[in-house]
């Protein structure tokens, strides 16, 4: 029998931290861009989306890993879809029941977690070949890496687009032109193209710090 690995060995921790930085699903693998554009106008929905996606990637990877030896190869992708879809609908239902305001803002994008490429990507690339525990950590790590970018993008978009953070006014009311000041919220930041530009800037900054990521 092989030697049992400790629950939080360095290897396991790497599974969690790598996707947050050098294997980031959004900035390095360029997955899940669509929803990163759609739900990042305000911080609160972005955060809820980040948590939802993290939970779904984590648990779907874990469940698929538990099932990996039994799945008939011919219906492998369909089985994955059923598991992911079930989890997403459960998350959607819970949001509707306990975070109604946010679920209204997220609208269809909760349902669209199903087609977030990160989830299927991690199942295919990792969960089907690894044990449940590392798969869970890998899924959570990738979800967190995705979520981190979402929150950073939402931070800038809410601050410059609405002058608020989590709905609280940050930029003083007296600065606004309507109150005799010099400042106005930037309408462009609210629209999706600006999210793409912010993601681009994040990629730029990340690569200028980590030369390994450039042009392999």
């Amino acid at each position: 029998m092989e030697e049992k690995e400790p629950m939080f060995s360095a290897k396991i921790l790497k599974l969690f931290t790598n996707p947050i930085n050098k294997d980031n699903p959004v900035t390095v693998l360029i997955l899940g861009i669509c929803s990163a554009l759609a739900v990042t106008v305000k911080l609160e929905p972005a955060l809820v989306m980040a948590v939802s996606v993290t939970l779904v990637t984590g648990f779907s990877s874990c469940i698929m890993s538990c099932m990996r030896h039994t799945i008939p190869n011919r219906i492998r992708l369909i089985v994955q879809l059923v598991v992911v879809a079930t989890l997403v609908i459960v998350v959607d239902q819970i949001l509707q029941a306990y975070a109604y305001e946010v679920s209204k803002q997220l609208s269809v994008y909760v349902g669209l977690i199903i087609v977030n490429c990160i989830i299927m990507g991690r199942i295919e690339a990792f969960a089907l070949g690894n044990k449940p525990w590392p798969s869970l950590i890998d899924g959570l790590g990738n979800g967190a890496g995705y979520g981190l970018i979402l929150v950073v993008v939402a931070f800038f978009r809410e601050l410059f687009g609405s002058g608020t953070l989590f709905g609280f006014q940050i930029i003083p009311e007296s600065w606004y032109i309507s109150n005799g000041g010099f400042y106005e919220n930037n309408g462009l930041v609210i629209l999706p193209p600006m999210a793409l530009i912010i993601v681009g800037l994040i990629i730029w900054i990340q690569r200028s710090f980590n030369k390994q990521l450039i042009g392999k």
Partner: protein
Amino acid sequence: MNANSNTYTFIYASILVIVAAATLAVTALVLKKSQEKNIEIEKKLNILASVGEDAGLSEAKRKKDFVEETYDTYIVEDFIVDGAGNRQEGDAFNINMAEEYHKIKAIVASKDEDKKESLRSQLRLPVFVYKEDNGALKYIIPVRGVGLWGPLWGYLSLNDDFNTIYGAVFGHKGETPGLGAEISDKAFAKQFTGKKIFSGETLTSIRVMKGGAPKNNPHAVDAVSGGTITSDGVAAMLKDCLEQYQAFFIKMKEEFKILN
């Protein structure tokens, strides 16, 4: 058993689907009550917002209790009217305006007066009555229409002269953020206060004017900039829905005249 045989695949798929279906059914059953409650609370909050009674919400500790309490205190009556202004039996709160909107659309589109008449008699339009602390009554009606990307809705409260708007609130499903979505902003809704929906005896509704409404025009408000189609949608929504309530308004105006 051979994991690649047809039998295994069929059995595997069947069990998986049954397990998934059971999980979803249980989740839906367990959460249904609080989901329905959320929708009810939101509707009550919108009704209250149209008469400005939502002001205390940000200080309220428990949003749900606040809404329920305020609603029970201030909304003293609700009833249903048809397109001819006659009262109908039924539960006004649970009327689905999306369904009524289909009928309204058919009425607006039809050119045949007889058909319009018969369609109107099938309408079931809710009216909510708000009683201010000083005893004055305001009448709240729901409105519904379409914007650029999806449905629009709102609540309009009228003074008991059935002409002057007391307050309004608008919502939308997915208008463009920063542009059309601004209709759900308080600043947009606030413009409606004090506007008149009748000019003499004819229903004029409220125009939502691009480039700004002329000052002193009691029948127009400013459109939202960059949201022309949404603004037009609001104007059409008000016109179409108010027309259906017109018979009821005229009846009530008569009563109002007699009383005064």
